[in-house]
Every structure is written in C-alpha cells, then in structure tokens.
C-alpha cells in the first residue's frame, strides 16, 4: 500500500471497528487501483471479523435500482457499491451515479431503519460533487470520505470545469418500477370508470409487467402483459380514446416479445416483435419531440431482441437483417453527434455484432473488413481517452473477435497477433484488479492462442499456453458467484491439454488430462452459458476414444508377424479404455442435449459417439448392450425436432 492508501485504509478500518447501525461513507478517486486496494482490504477485514461483505457492481443502467433494493431490507454487513468501472463510459457512470445518489437520498430513512451495517460508495472524484448537489442529506450524514489516491488539496487547484451528466443516458437509468407496488395500484384502479383511472391502470399494468421481467419473474410478467393486451383490445372496441397509442402499443408488444423470448417461445416472440415494429412505424408520423428519444431506443431494443431470437432459431439471414438495420440506426446517430462518446460506443458495438453474424453466415471477407474498421475506430478512441476503461475493454473484445475471424479464414499468424494484442489489454486490467472477471478473460484468450497453435501444429507453444491457463485456474481462488463458470473453464482447460497431448502422441498423458476434465465437469451444474465448453469436452472425449482405439489397432497391425521382439499391444484394454471415454462423452452429451434439444450439432456428435460405442461393443461381443445402444440411437433419431 502507498502512504495515501495506508492512511485511507486506517480511517476506513477505524470506522469498521466502531460504527454501529447504519452508516455511509465514500471512497473516491479517478484511479481505480487504490480503490481496489481498499475494497480488498475491507473484504479481508470483514472476513477476519465475521462480517458479511457484499460487493455490488452492477452495470451503469442498473445502478439506481440498487438503491431501492438496499432500502427493501438488505442483509446485514458491509455493502460496497461500485459506481465506476469498465462496463460504462465515464459520462455514463456519472449519469448513473447521479440517479443512484438521488434514489439513495430519498431512501435514507429506510436505510437508517432497516440496514444494520454500512454502505460504502466507490466512484470517481466527480462523485463528491454529485453527492453534495443531488443528495445533500446523504452528504450531510456521511461518516467520512476516503481518498486513497491522495488528497485533492495536494493537487494544483486550477479551476476545474464541471461536466453535467449526459441526458440521453439519464433517461435510461431511472429507478425501475416496483412491480408489486404497481400491481397493487392496478388492482385499486380496477373497475373505476373514469378515463384517467383506466389509463392509470394500463400504465400500472405495463410497469408491473416490465418490472416483473426485470426481476426475472417471467411467468407473472407474461400474465400481466397479456392482461394489459386484452384490456387494450376491449378498449379499442368500446372506448377507442382509452386504447394505447401506437407508441405505447409498440412498447407493449416489445415487452411481450422479450417475455416470449425468455420463456423459450421464439415464434411468438418474433410475431410480437414484428407487431412492435409495425406500431412504431405507425407512430413515427405523429411522435412528439419528447417521445422521439424513447421511440429510437425502443426500436434499437426491439431489433436487438429480434436478432437474438433469430440467432437462436438458426435464422442467420434474418438476424443479419435485424442487426444491420440496428447498426444503420446507431451509425447514423453516431455520425450526427460525433462528440457524444456514448453514441460512438453503441455504433461500434453494433458493428461488431453485425460482423459476427456475417462471419457465421460464411461472409468472411465482409466480416473481416468490418471488424478491421471497428478495431481501427476503437483503437483510436482508446488512444484518445487513455483513462476511459470502457474503450479499452471494447478494444480487447474487438481484437479477440478479429482474431477469431482471421482464424476462420485460415490466417493463423494474423489471429495470433490479434489475440496477443487482446491479451496485453486483459493483463492490464488484471494488474489493476485481480478479479475473476479478468481471470476469465485471460484464460479465454490464452485458450484461443492455444487453439491457434494447435491449428499450426505448434504443440509445444500450445502446451505452454495451456499450462499457463491451468496454473491460474488451479489456484481456485474464485468468488462463489463465479465458481461454476470458472470450474467449467478449468474442465475445458484439461480437455484442451488432452487434445494437445494427443497431437504430441502422448495418449497416456491425454487420458489423464481428460480424466481430470471429466472429474471436474461431472458434478458441475450446466448453465446455458457453459454449453459450448461442455460440448468441447464431449468432442474431445470422442476424439481421444477414437485415437486410443485406432492407435492400438494400428500398432497391432504393424507388429511383425510371429516376431517376439516387442510386447503385444493390449487391444482389449484399448477397447475398454475407448468404451469408457465414449460412455463419459455420452453422459455429458445427454446433459447437454437436455439443455438444448434443438441443437443439431450436439445431436450429431452424440449420434457419432453412439455409433463408435456400438462398434466397440460388437467387437467385445456384448450383444445385449449393443442392442440397447441401437435402441437409444434410434430413439435419438426419432426425437430429432422437426425444422
């Protein structure tokens, strides 16, 4: 710790030791490193003193809602809120922090009554003015302000210009509606005949459904969204004056689309989203100025959801169309307002998304060109704004995506170059804050580098990348919230090492490594986000099963006839080993298929494993189990979902 950090920590520790009940403090500074040091020290202190430590690090758009959640009666202990980070531009964080402190100021009494512990708000220097101006009560009751970066008094006091938080983002970061309160309100308004009451009920129902979706109570959200749609339908016939305007109807259908998508009903989702776009087009003729921004954001969101749904359905052409329209909207706004960083970032993100879909469709040349132009733009932005972590994150992801595009095109050395560039950015972040998030990024990029080396048949370098990743993961110093994801990364890392060892013809080593992968993966929960890793582990089991069998049969074939100079390869042992590998592949593959029964790639992979296993079982002469496998294979084909 630097002397400034030590001084700030000493003050923080003093309050941790002595404060009782609810208290509030700030940790501020433009440099994230000293703040991270204080956060980790606090975590350590809380651990040693049996106090629960909660870190809240939502993206900027969810920051204000955190104030409400804490006021509802948060668990006792220390609550550390991060109001800065690489998930947003500085101007977005300022806007979101403004909303957060406003919401906290309104709820200070609730904190005092319901919260047994402290809230520490961590952010940039601007946080002090935001709190002073927008939350004078919270500013007034602060316990202290820690500045681990050093006192601002020590810095030159030339008058600093104040930048007001951006408006476009502020509109998006308000506190989300409390769905239960909105439902109570809707039920109170039921049956009242006045037109204003009917309108108020419809607004309450909409807010309730949106709020329910945001807290993942999706079935309830669907019920109230449908109730609202039905009421609107009735009003359209009986009291057209009360019915929703085209813009509101578009918002409702966008919400229904998002809900249907969450519930795994893609056809319904696409229908609603299509209706939303039609209503939006209808509304554009009579949209007032203040609604324009809302309509624009709505269009952007609808196109995003529609593109995602189309992707899950495998409709890459449709997804490309949705993402292209979305990109064109955002690019035109970015072009019109080059000074607004937020618009430039949105346009870059949309371009990258479009390039990825084009890549998926096989349009590799266009995708690569687009990706290169995004990388150039983002690299320039990152250079112009060295303190803006969000651009550096985007640069990391762009370079990683470009690397993948180059790999698809077979430009392996180009891909390696891009991955190395991405890796150096990830290392910078890891240096600032050694968290699971950056660990995952590092491991992912190292794994891509490893794959590139494998494709180049540079097994030694591939193995060295693999060992580095495994070295990081095997320490198992993970937060509970990231444990599943990182454990899957570890399992995948073992599987990848097995693949390298197969390339190096070290089948015994590969078997051990793949057994490690299996041991790690077999009892892990399998969320959708980890399906790709699980599929890779299944594939490598299949691959090693074949390799072991064919290597042994080949050795058997090449053995000099009648010669006794060399030990006979154990063919039956190899078959048993391959059978074991195929069985493990099937166990994991079946779990994977349950997760997504429509995934034809997984289905085909499992069918292949069944066929190999069937062959080995026949060789072993175990007819009964061969029959059983045939039945399972037929069942797998029967259950194939219709297109």
């Amino acid at each position: 710790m630097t002397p400034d950090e030590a001084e700030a920590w000493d003050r923080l520790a003093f309050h941790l030791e002595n404060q009782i009940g609810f208290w509030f403090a700030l940790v501020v500074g433009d440099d994230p490193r000293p703040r991270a040091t204080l956060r980790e020290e606090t975590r350590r202190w809380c651990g040693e003193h049996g106090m629960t430590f909660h870190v809240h690090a939502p993206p900027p758009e969810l920051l204000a809602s955190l104030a409400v959640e804490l006021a509802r009666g948060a668990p006792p202990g220390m609550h550390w809120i991060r109001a800065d980070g690489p998930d947003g531009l500085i101007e977005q964080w300022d806007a979101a922090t403004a909303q957060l402190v406003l919401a906290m100021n309104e709820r200070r009494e609730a904190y005092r009554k319901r919260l047994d512990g402290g809230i520490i708000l961590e952010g940039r220097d601007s946080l002090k003015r935001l709190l002073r101006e927008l939350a004078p009560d919270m500013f007034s009751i602060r316990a202290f302000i820690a500045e681990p970066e050093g006192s601002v008094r020590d810095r030159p006091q030339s008058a600093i210009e104040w930048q007001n938080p951006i408006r476009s983002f502020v509109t998006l970061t308000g506190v989300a509606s409390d769905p239960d309160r909105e439902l109570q309100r809707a039920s109170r308004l039921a049956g009242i005949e006045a037109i204003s009451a009917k309108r108020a009920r419809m607004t309450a129902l909409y807010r309730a459904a949106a709020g329910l979706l945001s807290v993942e109570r999706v079935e309830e959200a669907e019920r109230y969204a449908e109730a609202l749609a039905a009421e609107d339908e009735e009003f359209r016939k009986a009291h057209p004056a009360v019915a929703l305007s085209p813009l509101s109807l578009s918002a409702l259908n966008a919400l229904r689309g998002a809900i249907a998508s969450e519930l795994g009903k893609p056809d319904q989702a696409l229908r609603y989203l299509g209706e939303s776009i039609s209503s939006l087009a209808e509304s554009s003729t009579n949209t007032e100025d203040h609604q324009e921004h809302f309509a624009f954001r709505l269009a952007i969101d609808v196109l995003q959801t529609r593109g995602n749904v189309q992707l899950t359905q495998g409709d890459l052409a449709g997804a490309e169309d949705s993402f292209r329209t979305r990109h064109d909207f955002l690019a035109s706004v970015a072009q019109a307002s080059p000074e607004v960083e937020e618009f430039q970032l949105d346009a870059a993100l949309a371009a990258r998304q479009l390039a990825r879909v084009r890549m998926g469709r096989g349009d590799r040349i266009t995708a690569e060109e687009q990706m290169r132009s995004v990388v150039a733009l983002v690299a320039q932005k990152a250079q112009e704004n060295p303190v803006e972590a969000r651009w550096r994150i985007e640069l990391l992801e762009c370079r990683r995506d470009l690397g993948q595009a180059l790999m698809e095109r077979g430009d392996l050395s180009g891909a390696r170059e891009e991955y190395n560039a991405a890796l150096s950015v990830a290392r910078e972040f890891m240096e600032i804050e050694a968290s699971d998030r950056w660990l995952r990024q590092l491991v992912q990029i190292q794994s891509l580098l490893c794959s590139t080396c494998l494709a180049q048949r540079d097994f030694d370098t591939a193995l060295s990348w693999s060992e580095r990743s495994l070295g990081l993961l095997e320490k198992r110093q993970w937060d509970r919230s990231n444990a599943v994801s990182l454990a899957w990364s570890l399992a995948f890392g073992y599987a990848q090492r097995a693949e390298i060892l197969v390339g190096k013809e070290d089948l015994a080593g590969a078997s051990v490594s793949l057994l490690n992968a299996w041991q790690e993966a077999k009892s892990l929960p399998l969320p959708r986000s980890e399906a790709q890793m699980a599929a890779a582990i299944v594939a490598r089991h299949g691959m090693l099963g074949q390799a072991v069998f064919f290597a042994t049969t080949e050795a058997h074939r090449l053995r000099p006839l009648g010669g006794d100079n060399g030990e006979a390869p154990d063919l039956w042992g190899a078959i048993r080993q391959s059978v074991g590998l195929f069985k493990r592949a099937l166990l994991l593959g079946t779990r994977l298929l349950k997760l997504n029964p429509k995934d034809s790639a997984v289905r085909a992979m499992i069918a292949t494993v069944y066929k190999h296993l069937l062959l080995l079982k026949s060789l072993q002469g175990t007819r009964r189990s061969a029959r059983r496998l045939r039945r399972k294979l037929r069942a797998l084909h029967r259950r194939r979902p219709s297109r």
Partner: protein
Amino acid sequence: MQSIDRNIQRALFRALRDRPLNLMEDEDRKLYEPLHDDRHDPVKRLFDTIDFSEVESVQLVAGFRGTGKTTELSRLEKDLWEAGFHVIRVDLDDFIDMHSPVDIREFLLILAGALSEQLTNERLLGQEKGLEKSFVERMRSLLPKMPSEITANAGVANVKLALRGDPGFRGQIREQLSGRLAELTKQIRAYHEEILEALRERAGREVRLVVILDSLEHLRGTGETSEVVRRSVEELFFTHAARISLPNTHMVMSVPAFLFLEANNLAAQFMNGAVQAWPAYQVQRRDGGRTEVVDRIIRLVERRGDWKQILPDQTALEKLILASGGHLRDLLNMLVEAVHLARHGVNAESAEKIIGVAQRAYLPLYKDEIDVLGRIAAEKSLKDVRAEEQERVLRFLDSGVLLCYLNDDFWYDVHPLVRDVVQST
C-alpha cells in the same frame, strides 16, 4: 506521544457521533448545551410568539441542515409542555415524499392523519380514545371511490404508506378531491375541533395546543424535479396559507430555506405569522473576530467526553471550532476524526491534519461554483446572486458550502474550510 486507550476511544466515538438530541429524555438532556445567546435564541423567539399570541399563530422556521434544528425543536417542545401547553410534534419525513411536488389536498390529509397518529400518545389522548378511527371515517366519506384496502380496514399507517410511497394514490386523491377543496378544508377543521374537544375533556380545562411540523424543509426536489417541487411549495404557503393553519392552535413549521430567501412577505400570509431563521452558530464575527459562542461550543464538547484525550490543547479545539464555521455536524465529524488520529498519538499538528481531512469533503470546487461563491464571500451577502444562480446557492446552503449567520440581520459566508480555495482561485 501516547496513544489513546481503546475503550476510551470507543466511548468518545459513540458520544461524538452526530444525532439529534431529544430533550424530552433525561439522558439526552445531559448532553445538551445551549449555544445561542438570549437575544438571538430562536427557540425563545418561537416560545414568546406562542405565549404572547392569544388564540393561534403560525411560525415558519427556515433552517439549514446540520445546525441542530431538530434538537432545538425538541427543546421548544419540552419548554412548552413545562409551561402548560399541549404539544403535538410530527416528523413529516415519515409522511411526505419530499422529492415530489406537494399538493394542498394531500397536505391537508397528511396533516390530519399525522395529528391523529400522534394523539395516541399517553400525554395527549392515549390509545383508548381511538380518534384514529374517526380520521379514517372522514377520509372514507370524502373519498368514496378510494380503494378499499387503503380506506376500509386500514388505519393511518396504511394511508401514510400510500401517501408517501405511491404516486398513483396521490394522483387519485387529487382527482377525487378536484373542486372539493372547500369541503375538504371544512372536514379537516371539524376533525380538528373534535381533537381539541377531546383534549379539553381529558385535561378537564382549556387546552392550548401547539403543533410542531418538523422536516418540511426537506421538501426540495433534486435535479430535474427541483423547479416543480419549489413551485408547489410556494403555492402551498402563499396561495393556501389560510387553509394550512389550524384554528385555535399554534403552529410551528420548518420550511425550505428558499421560501425565506426569496419572499419577504411570507409571515403576512398567516394570522399572527412570524418567520424565524435557524442560522449556523456564529463562531466568528464578520470582521473575523472570535465570539463567545466558541466557549459555549467548548462546553458542549466537554459534555460529550474528555476532549483532552484526543487533542493536544484548547487552542487545537478552538481551531477546529473556528474551521467548522459553527456548523455543528462538521465539528462533530472533525472530532470523530480526532478520535481516529488519537490512536496513533496526539500531537501538536493534530488540528491541522483534521482540518485537512475535513476540507477534502468539499473539494474540489469547480469553476462554476467558485464564480458564485467568490462574489458571496466578497460581499457577505446574496445581493449579487443572479436569478439563474439561486438554485445553486440553495444547494450550497443545503450542503453547508455556504453558511448563513444572524446578527441583527442575516449575512452569508463560504465555509471556512473552503474559504482559502475560493479566495485564491
């Protein structure tokens, strides 16, 4: 350099933690030290106006955060009870959403509901008299279309929750009482008469009732709502002044500072109206000379604990008091910092270090802020503040960057902690 004992440190930390004192309680009375001199004691002024007004009065208290206003209002309550008055003190923070515009119809209902809730206090009517029910019945007759779960079985608590937390409910009230303000006022007054009658009956004598409404000064929107909230408060106190006063009752209301700063005819809106301002404690005169308030504050600190354990000498304590500008909350924060530093030993530089830490809370000041503060610091008044800068000045007063003092007239100065920065930039 000897470090402080850990138990003493903890005891001092707890004693110095900032909280309002309730002078109705013995323990808190031990910690209280009067800081105002007799001539400028706002509690005495409030008390005298109530005592000298025959039947009713309305006094508005314009106060700023962290200046001990809630503690002093509890002193007023104690003095009034001791003088034979009946006192109802309500913290409106529990009833009003302070960040949304306030409407006269809601305000009247809140007033009646808040009084009703307080009446269950044993010194007033007690639990058994059940006037709370009467309030709900009146509300039901006034608002026949109101949702059943609010007005039917529920008591004041439910109405309170809905009024504070449910903008939809407030909207319904406005709608249903639209054009019926006179009827509502009549009902509220009739209800208040009922209260007075019940109090008279219980006391067996004529009752002089004082209603203290605290925290109304928190009624200030922030950011985009500030303008509309401000307009709603102005409308409440200027257009509906006659409606918010209660017959045969003395009222004391803390109000937002802007009402006091922007209008000089506020008191004239009410019968026996008066406006009292709650300034910061004047530890220095306009010319910079030390005042005797410093000695009183030293006595206040002594009541909280042995400050010699955390500061080297009285000069150091006085330095802190002067640096606080008479803003009590800042002084207490500085003393807590002194407790913190004392664990590494007390030395001659302690006061400077503590002041440095306290300064950080207010710095950096930005160019737009320094422009305005510089003019106020030069003139010690707000006369050079432009109309478009008023909102900013109110924020300065809210956060304590700017302090308001009272001699025979009001004057303003930037907080001593930032004075150097304002003057040097």
